[in-house]
């Protein structure tokens, strides 16, 4: 979403939270079959993303507000989303079911829960999809064009507001999917958004904002750094959580554009 609009959306973690609560409501409360519940959550999130853009972003952009204005408006939306959930549901974490049940797969040196493998598979699917869209389709190219030069893109006949609305809808869907995927492990909770967003932004900084693969690469690096430090690094347990942040600082100092640079 950052790509075509240049807007950093701090509410992305709360979108993930809304997705997780959607999972709780449909899958746990109403016991819908998983694929149906998942599709409904994705559709609702797309709508929510579109609505967010309509309410919080477009009026500002149309009135020519500086880029900072929608970013701050979205920070406000973060509070709106979180508090709406916090008053609508009891404060405790809510369980969300696993699509493939609770179990573990050992495969040579690799091992993990069914859910871990499901998350890896879905993530790859989403990234391949996003990569194909941005790199291989005209519509994707039009997003790129908007990112490079809004006015020029508009002059070329690209509908700016449609691109923005679409990118918000897609962004919210993917954030909601992330929330749905992670919620069987961490449970749906109204404060779950911020840590997820921090991890996401760290991954983005490490990987590079300009490229689709950047976020994936950054996410993988961050995950390996986190998990391997906890498991193998000979440092007291309390310090292991500082390692990813150290990594972030090193990247900001040495390579502030991230590992992968945007193509010229």
């Amino acid at each position: 979403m950052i790509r075509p609009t240049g807007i950093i959306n701090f509410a992305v973690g709360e979108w993930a939270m809304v997705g997780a609560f959607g999972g709780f409501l449909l899958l746990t409360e109403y016991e819908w079959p998983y694929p149906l519940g998942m599709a409904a959550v994705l559709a609702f999130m797309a709508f929510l993303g579109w609505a967010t853009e309509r309410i919080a972003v477009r009026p500002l952009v149309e009135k020519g507000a500086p880029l900072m204005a929608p970013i701050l408006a979205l920070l406000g939306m973060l509070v709106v989303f979180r508090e709406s959930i916090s008053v609508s549901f009891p404060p405790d974490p809510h369980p969300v079911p696993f699509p493939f049940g609770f179990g573990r797969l050992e495969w040579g040196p690799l091992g993990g829960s069914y859910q871990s493998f499901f998350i890896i598979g879905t993530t790859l699917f989403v990234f391949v999809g996003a990569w194909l869209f941005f790199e291989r389709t005209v519509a994707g190219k039009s997003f790129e064009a908007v990112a490079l030069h809004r006015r020029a893109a508009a002059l070329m006949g690209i509908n700016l507001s449609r691109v923005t609305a679409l990118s918000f809808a897609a962004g919210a869907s993917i954030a909601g999917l992330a929330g749905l995927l992670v919620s069987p492990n961490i449970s749906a909770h109204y404060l779950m958004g911020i840590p997820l967003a921090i991890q996401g932004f760290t991954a983005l900084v490490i990987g590079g904002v300009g490229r689709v693969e950047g976020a994936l690469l950054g996410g993988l690096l961050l995950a390996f750094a986190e998990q391997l430090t906890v498991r193998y690094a000979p440092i007291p347990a309390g310090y292991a959580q500082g390692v990813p942040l150290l990594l972030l600082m090193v990247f900001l100092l040495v390579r502030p554009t991230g590992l992968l640079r945007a193509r010229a």
Partner: protein
Amino acid sequence: MKVLALVGAALVALSAQAQDTIKIGVITDRVGVSKPYSEPSTEGLVFGANEINRKGGILGKKIELLVEDDQSRPDISAALARKLIDQGVVFILSMSLTPATQQQQTVTMEAKTPQMTPMNSGDTLTTQLPNPYFWQTGPLGSIQIATLLAHARAKNLKRVSLITDNSDLGQLIARFFRSGLEKSGIQIVSEEVVPRGATTAEPQMQKIRAANPDALFLAGVLTAENVLILRAYRQFGLKFPIHSSYNLSVPVYLTVGKGLVDGVTFVDAYDPDKPEVREFEAAYRKATGKDPFNMHGYGYDGIMLVAEAIKKAGSTDKEKIREAMQSLTYQGVMGAKGMKYSFPEGKRAGFDPNGMVVRVYEGDKQGRVVYTGQK
């Protein structure tokens, strides 16, 4: 003139109504971090007040609760205490976070207004300020840990692991566990931390598995992270027992930790077999249609203690209530069978050090008491 007379009559009616009730202030948390504890506790308190009023009130007057929400924020909390005192409350019940309760004391001490927390467990609440108007009846953190460790000694453990989260309270409880275990001569073979917002505790649990302990002590207080820990434990099919802090007594684990908690022991101040508890649960169910749990008991005992003190004082004079409270002995819902709250020798923390119990999860239910006290 007619209008003025009407207003006058209304004012008289209002003040008459105000005189008819005994006002008790309640400072709770409806939106902040303490909400999961404050809410059920306050529900228990409100139920207790209704019961008292149904039976005719105290000293022939009904209780009127003035409830305020401090969001667990100490800065707001003191101002609310002031507001309640200005509105004429004779007692304040503090139902939110320990630091907020502490902050309220600065006001109640100066305004000489009795204040009590029936649920906070911070050890220093009654020792930091020489506030004769403040009491605490929640079980102190040190009692919880001593009870858990007494249970561990009885189990003859030699080598244990310790896991917690990175919250203030989780770290604090882990520190108490560590020093207590070391004093008992029990070796800690590995110590792990799961940070807030983590998405897995598997690497931590792999390390613990490698250390092969006799038992795992769970000191975390963040529900989601504790569930991650329990999930990793089941995932690896581990067999050593888990002994947990008071945190696992909160019934949220029945739903969010479904299928994960069987066999885990936890410290609690609630014995389901205690006659007072059975009576309380039946009455609560009848009045509200809902099942109460341990948190409800705290608020219920709180308002009952206050009512008892006012009854004993025989008046709503704050000084008389203070004297009555200090000399009170009361057996309530919370605590092991037969436990009484009391404040001997000027102490203002009233929970009996031997009043806590260790319970065990049986299936997905909070089950029987397996150990009592700290001897």
